[in-house]
C-alpha cells in the first residue's frame, strides 16, 4: 500500500514519517517512533490503555488514523516527566498512593488524569470517577487511582498558588 507523509509534534518534538493511510496513531507512536508508553488493550475504544493527549483533548489513539493527527500536538505519558527527568506530579502521586499494579493501564490513566485536571482542577471524588470512566484497570479496583488523582489535584493547586 502506498505511504503518505505525516508530520506532528509529539512530546514537544517535531516528528515525521511515512505511514499507510490506514495506519493507526497508536501503531505509529509505538512502532515508528518507539514511544511505547501508550499500550493496546482492546483496539476498540473501550479500555483507554492507548490514551494520549491531542490538541488539548484526551483521545484513544487506537481509534484514530495517524493521518488524522497530521499537524497535531500530541502528548504521551513520556511527555509528562519533569524537565530534570523526575516524575511529574501525577506520576509521583500514582506511586505514592499505590495507584498501579501491573502498570499496563497506567500510561493511559495518567495521561487521561492530566487532561481531566485541566478540565476540572478541583474535582470531587465522583467527578474523578466519572471523568476516568473511559479508562479500564483490571488490577487496582480504582480506589487508589482515585486517591492519587485527588491528591494530584491538591498538589497541583498548591503549586499554582505558590507560583502566584
Amino acid at each position, binding site marked *: *500500500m502506498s505511504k503518505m507523509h505525516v508530520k506532528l509534534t509529539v512530546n514537544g518534538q517535531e516528528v515525521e514519517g511515512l505511514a*499507510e493511510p*490506514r*495506519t493507526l496513531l497508536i*501503531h505509529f507512536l*509505538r*512502532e515508528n517512533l*518507539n*514511544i*511505547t*508508553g*501508550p*499500550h*493496546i*488493550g*482492546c*483496539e*476498540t475504544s*473501550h*479500555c483507554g*490503555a492507548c490514551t494520549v493527549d491531542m490538541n488539548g483533548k484526551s483521545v484513544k489513539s487506537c481509534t484514530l488514523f495517524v493521518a488524522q493527527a497530521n499537524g497535531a500536538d500530541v502528548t*504521551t*505519558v*513520556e511527555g*509528562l*516527566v519533569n524537565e530534570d527527568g523526575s*516524575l511529574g506530579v501525577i*506520576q*509521583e502521586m*500514582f*506511586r*505514592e498512593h*499505590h495507584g*498501579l*499494579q*501491573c*502498570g*499496563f*493501564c*497506567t*500510561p493511559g490513566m*495518567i495521561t487521561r488524569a492530566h487532561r481531566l485536571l485541566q478540565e476540572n482542577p478541583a474535582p470531587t471524588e465522583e467527578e*474523578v*470517577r*466519572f471523568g*476516568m*470512566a*473511559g*479508562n*479500564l*484497570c*483490571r*488490577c*487496582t*479496583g*480504582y*480506589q*487508589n*487511582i*482515585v486517591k492519587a488523582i485527588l491528591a494530584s489535584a491538591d498538589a497541583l493547586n498548591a503549586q499554582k498558588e505558590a507560583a502566584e
Partner: protein
Amino acid sequence: MKDEITPEDRVANLKGMGSSRKRVEDVRFTQGKGNYVDDIKLDGMLFGDFVRSPYAHARVKSVNKEAALAVPGVLAVLTAEDLEPLGLHWMPTLAGDKQMVLADGKVLFQGQEVAYVVATDRYAAADGVEAVVVEYEELPVVVDPFKALEPDAPILREDIKDRTEGAHGPVRHNNHIFTWEQGDKDATEAALAEADVVAEEMIYYHRTHPCPLETCGCVASMDKVTGKLTLWGTFQAPHAIRTVVSLISGIAEHNIRVISPDIGGGFGNKVGAYAGYVCSVVASIVTGKPVKWVEDRMENLMSTAFARDYWMKGRIAATKEGKITGLWCHTTADHGGFDACADPTKFPAGFMNICTGSYDIPTAYLAVDGVYTNKAPGGVAYRCSFRVTEAAYFIERMIEVLAIKLNMDAAELRRINFIRKDQFPYQSALGWEYDSGDYHTAWEKALDAVGYDALRAEQAQRLEDFKAGKTRKLIGIGLTHFTEIVGAGPVKNCDILGLGMFDSCEIRIHPTGSAIARLGTISQGQGHATTFAQIIASEIGLPADDITLEEGDTDTAPYGLGTYGSRSTPVAGAATAMAARKIRAKAQMIAAYLLEVHDDDVEWDVDRFAVKGAPERFKTMKEIAFAAYNQAIPGLEPGLEAVSYYDPPNMTYPFGAYICVMEIDVDTGETEVRSFYALDDCGTRINPMIIDGQIHGGATEGYAIAMGQEIAYDEMGNNKSATLMDFFLPTAWETPTYTTDFTVTPSPHHPIGAKGVGESPNVGSVPCFSNAVHDAFRPFGLVQSHMPHDHWRIWKIARDLGLHG
C-alpha cells in the same frame, strides 16, 4: 560510640516486612518505561496472525493459501499439514489431554486456530489472514454439557473416540473426560437420609474470563548460528514453558531461553501454552527471523483460557438447630473442546474438594464429571487457586439456602458451624489439613464493624416501606466467610506435567553489602520486586532498597513453577526466607571469626551479629559481606550467596469475612453497592499497602463476575461476549469503594508465617455480592438465581416474584 541510631531506626531503615514500602517498579511504569512483550522490537522482526474458525464445530475440508501468499508482505502461511512433519500440529495440555495447534481436519470451537500467517508487519499479516480461503462443513454443535453426555450426542473428539480410559481413570461416553470422586459417598448419603433437614440446590458458576488488560503474546527468535531459541512471552510460568517447549519441539532445554518481561496482568490467563507460542517458534525456525505474535482482545476472549463453568448440584444436611451433618456435591464441569485446565496433575477438578469451606462438616462427598463441549478450552484459575472460587461460591450459597430452609439468620448459621480455633490443624472430610484459623474472632469483628444488627433492622424497615408502597428499593446484605487453599504445593501430591510444585530463590550478597535475588516466580502486578526484597531485608538486615530482585529469565533464575494460585508468597516467599537464612548462618560464622569469639557466642540483632552480653561488640551485615570477599577465613569458602528450593510441607489456608450492603431497584434491576467490608487473614503481613491494593483489585474482579461478566454462547456455539462492549469490565464509575480490615493468624509451617492474599478477594467477594442480591429477595421466596446478576436478570427475578405489581 560507634553506633548512635536506635534499634527502632535500624529496623525502619531496612523497610522490611510489615512496612508499607513504596513499590520500586512504579518509577518505570508511571513514565511509560515498562517493557511488555509488545514493546519488544528486534531487527527484521516478522508478525504472525491467525485465521480462526467462524464455526463452533465443523470439518475443515480445505485450506487454500494461494491468494494469501500473493499479498505483499506475506511470507508464509502455516497449516496443520505443515506442522505435522515436525509433530507439532497437536500439543499436550497441562491436564493430560492434547490440543490441536492448528485445525487438524476439524474445529471444535469458534475462534479455533486454523492457519498462521507470517508477514513483514501486522497490517500485512491481517491482510494475509483475510485472503486465506477455508472450506468448512458444519457439524452439529453441543454447548450444553448435560446434552453432551446424552447417548446420541455428536462425537466431538474423533481423535480419541471409543476410548474407555482417560487421563484420570475410566470414561463412560465419548464426550466424558473424567470422574473425580472424593470423600465418603455412603456415609454422606446416610447422613442425608437421617438428617432433620436437607436443602438441595443447583448452583451454577457461569463461564467467565480473566481478561487481563494486556492480552497474551510472544516473540520467538531462533538464532540459527548458535542454535539457541529465545522466547519472550506473557508467561506466568516461564520455566514450565521452557520445559514444555523443549519436550514438544525436541530443542534441548539448555538451548532455550524463556523470558517473561513485564506482564500486564495475568489472573490465570497466562499460565497455559497456546497455539500462538508454538506457531511463532516454528515460524522463527522456518524464516530464520524473530516472529512476534500478540492476540487482539477478541482473540483473547474467544480462545485463550476461560474460567469456571461449573454446574454444582448440592445437598446439605443439618439438625433442626442448624448443625450441619453432611455435604454432598455433584459437579458437571464444562471444559470445552480440549481439556486444557491448569490444575496439578492429580487434581483434575483442582481443589474443588475445599468445598466444605470454613465449616466443621463431619461427612462429605464430592464427584466431578469433566465434559467436552464446543466451547473454547481453558478452565484456568481466574485469580484463585485451582477451582477454589467455585468451591467457595458453592458452599457459601448452600449455607444461605440452608438458612432459608431453617428460617435462620445466615450469620448465626455460620457461627454455629465454623471450625473452632482449637480444632486446628483441622482434618477436613474431603481430605485437607487446614493449617490454622480463627474464624469466630474474624466473624465477630466483621459483624461488629458493619453494625450487623442495625443493618438488619434497617433492612426490615425498608421492607415494610416497600410493602407499604413508599419505596421501590430493597436492601440486600451479603455475607461470606471463605477459606482459601493456596501455595501449591507439596511435591508429594502436587505436580504439573510431572514437575513438582516447589519454588526457588537465589540470593547473592555483593561485597559492598547490597544484593541481588532471583526467583522462579514472575510478577504480573503483585509487586514482587518490592515485597520479596522486604522479606530478605528483615531476614538478613540489609535495606530493601539495596536489594535488586529479578524474575522471569530462565537463563538466570533458578527453576520455579511460576506465579498463579497465590503460590508466590507461600512457596517462593518461603524459599526466599530459607535462602536468606542460609546466608545469615554463614554470616554468623564470619562475624564470630571477626569478633574472635565462638560461633555460639554471637547473636542476631536486626542488621548485625553482636557478642552475647556485649552488644557494643558487633559486626553489621554490611561489614560481614565485605569480609566474606576479602578475608581468608579458616574453614569457610569465600563469598556470600545461597540458593533454596522450597517444597512446602502443606498448603496455606488464608481466610476472610466479607460483608456487603446493596441497594436494589426492583423496577430497573439496577444495583448500587453501598458498602463493602473485607476482613482478610493472610497470616503474617509483608506489605500492608500492597495487600490492600490486592484486595481492592480482586474484589473488583469479583464484582464484575457476580454482577455481569460472562462468556456466553448461543446454541450455534457463537461467542456472544468477545468484545469489551459485551464482556463486562467495571469502570471507576460503578466500582464500589472497599473498607479493608484484618486479623493475623500466622501459618505454623511457613518460615515467616505468611499465607498469601492475592486471590482471596476474588474467592470471597463473588459469593458476597451474589448473596446480597439473593438476600434482598429472600423475604419474597427467592432461593437461587444464577449469576451474573446484571440488571436484566435482577429485573427478571423481581418480575418472576410478582414484584412489578
